[in-house]
């Protein structure tokens, strides 16, 4: 009896969420909403700006999961660079103020199917991997820069190096592509 009660007190339940969990859920809803608006809006630049909200919401989620370093890198790379690149590209096109009539294509149902399948797969993997893992918010920070760095370079060195080779290949590819054009002139 007592043991069972203790176990119940130690394992946090879904019915009495803490403040952080409620915040996590609300930010998640905002992120999801912003992401849905991003892909459904017919105003191109608004889509890019909603993407900022979605990516920022994701950064806040990382923060709530105590992964501070990942959160700031998320803001730095995605909001600071990728979205700026996106907006730069959009400004080079004729993206009008107001709705673009041709922003939709016939691929809509296919895209929806792919998105749902990807979402189901990802949610299933994450739920299955972390079933009953809870972060201890009172103890040492589990996602600090130091811990993240140590994990990355102790346990995940090979994937990290493989990724860097992949990025290098992409970089070389980009240079090759841009040089070819110059010769054609």
């Amino acid at each position, binding site marked *: 009896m007592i043991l069972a009660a203790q176990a119940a007190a130690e394992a946090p339940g879904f019915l009495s969420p803490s403040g952080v969990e409620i915040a996590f859920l609300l930010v998640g809803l905002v992120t999801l909403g912003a992401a849905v608006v991003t892909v459904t809006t017919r105003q191109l630049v608004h889509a890019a700006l909603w993407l900022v909200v979605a990516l920022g919401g994701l950064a806040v989620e990382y923060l709530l999961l105590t992964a501070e370093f990942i959160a700031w890198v998320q803001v730095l790379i995605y909001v600071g660079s990728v979205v700026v690149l996106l907006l730069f590209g959009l400004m080079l096109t004729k993206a009008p103020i107001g709705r673009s009539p041709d922003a939709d294509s016939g691929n809509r149902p296919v895209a929806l199917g792919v998105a749902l399948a990807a979402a189901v797969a990802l949610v299933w993997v994450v739920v299955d991997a972390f079933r009953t893992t809870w972060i201890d918010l009172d103890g040492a*920070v589990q996602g600090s820069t130091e811990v993240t760095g140590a994990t990355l370079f102790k346990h995940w060195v090979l994937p990290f190096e493989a990724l860097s080779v992949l990025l290098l290949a992409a970089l070389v590819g980009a240079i090759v592509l841009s040089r070819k054009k110059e010769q054609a002139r």
Partner: protein
Amino acid sequence: MNDALDVAVRLVIVFGLFLVLPLVVGQTEHKVMAHMQGRLGPMYAGGFHGWAQLVADGVKFAQKEDVVPKDADRRVFQLAPAVALLPYLLVLLAIPIGPGEGAVGQVIDAGIFFVLAVMGVGVLGSLMAGWASANKFSLLGGLRTAAQLLAYELPMLLAAASVAMAAGTVSLPGILNAFEWWWLPWQIVGAIVFFVAGLAELQRPPFDMPVADSEIIFGAYTEYTGLRFALFLLAEYAGIVVLCGLTTVLFLGGWHGPFGGDGLGWVWTLLKTAVLAFVVIWLRVTYPRLREDQLQKLAWTTLVPLALAQIALTGIVKVAIQ
């Protein structure tokens, strides 16, 4: 209760600094520029050497009509100044001005990443303004802003990474605790790269191609009037304060000084920041505007290699002294 009070006091102090320091820099710019050009600058507002000129300017801006062009994207247009200004307020929270936990708004574990990430967000404000104004000059300004940011973000990050390597930490107070005087010559190249790239990110002369008033009429801000225009200007000066403060903390040793370390640390920080701000103004008066191709060339063929060389040097010295 005590905790809440502590947080509130810190926020109020940082907010006060955020409102006062940019105005001080602005006023200094008026006077320094004037004297460098053989003029007197503002002399009447407030009586003593025109000290209240910017306050008067603020009142003037507040009285002007707030115009939104008919074809503009209303909400994005109105939101842009806030997006441009607020990041600098957040960054100011993380800059330590003295030793110890009491002299920083908020200790952040990944401080360098925080400040660089949030500063990058501020540029979104200019992009939003440039696109939403429905004006070709604004659009050109927005385009140039984006191109400039993409070019100069990389060397800035690399230079900051070099300091983080030297200190073995990415927290700003941690970097200051590890600082030694000989870092100054060791990191000097990184410091120059960081400062120059920061100037470019703020679009200060000689990197003011995106706002070039004589060709594209202040770029992204062409259509702005009244208070919203004033907010963009405030963002520029807050950016100068933040950039000079960051350069001070990362490369010039922040509160470390030849004497009076503990009690007078904050004086050293402010002094170094002020000297750097003076340099920013000095550069504006001295150099002509760089052309767009010169801008890109400077970033990609000079600053990026220099920053990479600095990182290599940092790594070699770091391994050698261990």
